[in-house]
């Protein structure tokens, strides 16, 4: 418990700052930009009415309702929310699991009467607590925005599920960063490392979007949870959910093994 509380105290400032950034982006996107975007619907409809029917169909795709829906716009904004959320999770993971390595004080912690697995668990739990609190707030604000902005029928369950995508993505990235912290010999900068992880995930996700190769989606962490599908059908796709869970659990397991069994050399 002492390690858990110590770690929470060390990460709370960073967690609060990142939560504020995430919420600010969410509010700007869904409370400021979306209403402006939605108000342009009539003009787009009028413009499309002047197009030949075939052209209009190709331009719009399936339906204007979907494009101008709250869920459709949220899905567009989610890419940026997930990028910020991923950087936050990476900051927490690197900060928690590489803290002693960076401060060269691993000896201090590892000569305390506590099993390494308990130290690892306390750190993981502190990170998880920060992510849960952030996402509880995110979920609440997101839900309130949904209720205020949704023009069609309210489907609260779907909105909650879609908002949960951020939490699940953050768990994946948290596990990735914990693993990097455990295996890297040196972590010079938490923020630099976190940016690299966040943008690394963004590039993998963009790669899938550009090449449209289905197999690439398994390594595109921000596409494991399709928020658009969550809004339209109230579900995520099982193969990608399973992949996300497998990646998270295996990386946390590997991190724990390394953390518990590695030699701590003198600095």
């Amino acid at each position: 418990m002492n390690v858990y509380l110590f770690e929470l105290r060390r990460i709370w400032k960073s967690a609060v700052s990142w939560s504020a950034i995430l919420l600010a982006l969410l509010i700007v996107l869904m409370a400021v930009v979306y209403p402006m975007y939605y108000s342009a619907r009539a003009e787009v409809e009028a413009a499309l009415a002047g197009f030949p029917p075939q052209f209009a169909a190709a331009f719009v795709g399936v339906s204007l309702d979907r494009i101008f829906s709250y869920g459709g716009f949220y899905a567009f904004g989610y890419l940026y929310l997930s990028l910020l959320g991923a950087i936050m999770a990476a900051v927490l993971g690197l900060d928690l699991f590489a803290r002693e390595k960076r401060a060269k004080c691993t000896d201090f912690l590892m000569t305390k009467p506590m099993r390494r697995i308990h130290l690892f668990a306390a750190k993981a739990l502190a990170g998880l607590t920060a992510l849960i609190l952030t996402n509880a707030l995110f979920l609440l604000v997101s839900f309130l925005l949904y209720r205020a902005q949704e023009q069609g029928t309210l489907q609260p369950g779907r909105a909650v599920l879609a908002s949960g995508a951020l939490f699940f993505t953050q768990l994946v990235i948290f596990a990735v960063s914990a693993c990097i912290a455990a295996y890297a010999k040196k972590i010079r900068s938490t923020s630099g490392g976190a940016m690299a992880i966040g943008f690394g995930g963004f590039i993998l996700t963009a790669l899938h979007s550009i090449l449209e190769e289905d197999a690439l989606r398994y390594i595109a962490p921000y596409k494991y949870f399709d928020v658009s599908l969550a809004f339209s059908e109230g579900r995520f796709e099982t193969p990608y959910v399973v992949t996300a869970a497998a990646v998270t659990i295996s990386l946390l397991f590997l991190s724990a093994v390394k953390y518990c069994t590695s030699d701590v050399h003198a600095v």
Partner: protein
Amino acid sequence: MSAVIETERLTKYYGKARGIIDVGMAVNEGEIFGFIGPNGAGKSTTIRTLLSLIHKTSGEARIFGMDCEKDKVKILSEVGYLPGEVFYYDNMRAIDLLKYSASFYRKDCMPRIKELAELLQLDLLKKIEDMSLGNKKKVGIVQGLLHSPKLIILDEPTSGLDPLMQRTFFDLIRKENEQGATVLFSSHILSEVQRICDRVAIIKEGRIISTQKIADLRQSAYKRVSLTLKEPAGDFRLSGATDITVDGSHINFIYGGDCNALLGAISQLPLINVDITEPELEEIFLHYYVE
């Protein structure tokens, strides 16, 4: 007298590189046991294996009769450790670090923290990163002793401490020892070990080459002698002198034997200057153990 630390054929390899080989030693309850050897000899590797910071390749290591790896938690609750170089978390005051350290032990450590801080003249409210090397070391000392451990492991503990503080530190360790703590004191400075220890193990290239009482080590103490004469020195010979080099009017040698015989012999020479110093450990190994 029961052994607090026991190792049998304790071996550690880092890949193919030698750490320690077949280290066997027994530190008895209530003694101050010195552990000396040159840098890279294996002192820290032995200590880090005892503390379960690194995992042994083979052999046995027990503290308080318990296995160092399997019973690590029980053992570490009664062990205080002070490394040669101390590093702590960024942006923390000494008191916060010490409170965090104390939170791992099931006892109220605050009175002891205050007592030690007062003795060492340590400002507990200062941020550790703003402290001098010596003051950081003091934080390390308080951190290692705040839970009144039964076994104190010191790995090159005096680096960074000024001579006055070294004296305070040695007094403190002696006091802890008088109150029942066993001490393992690792150093590459022979005089430090001679000053405080009851027995000493000497480690070289990963192997313990001798374990003896400090009193015996003193008897066989070696000195490096440098003489400057008024005139060029001729052939120089003296019973007990080895590694003799004559360079013009300068004579250097390692002397092991009766000091009176040495003084008697050199007083016959036309001297300008005499230096009698403690030889480096390497020199002792070279001239005493190898030969």
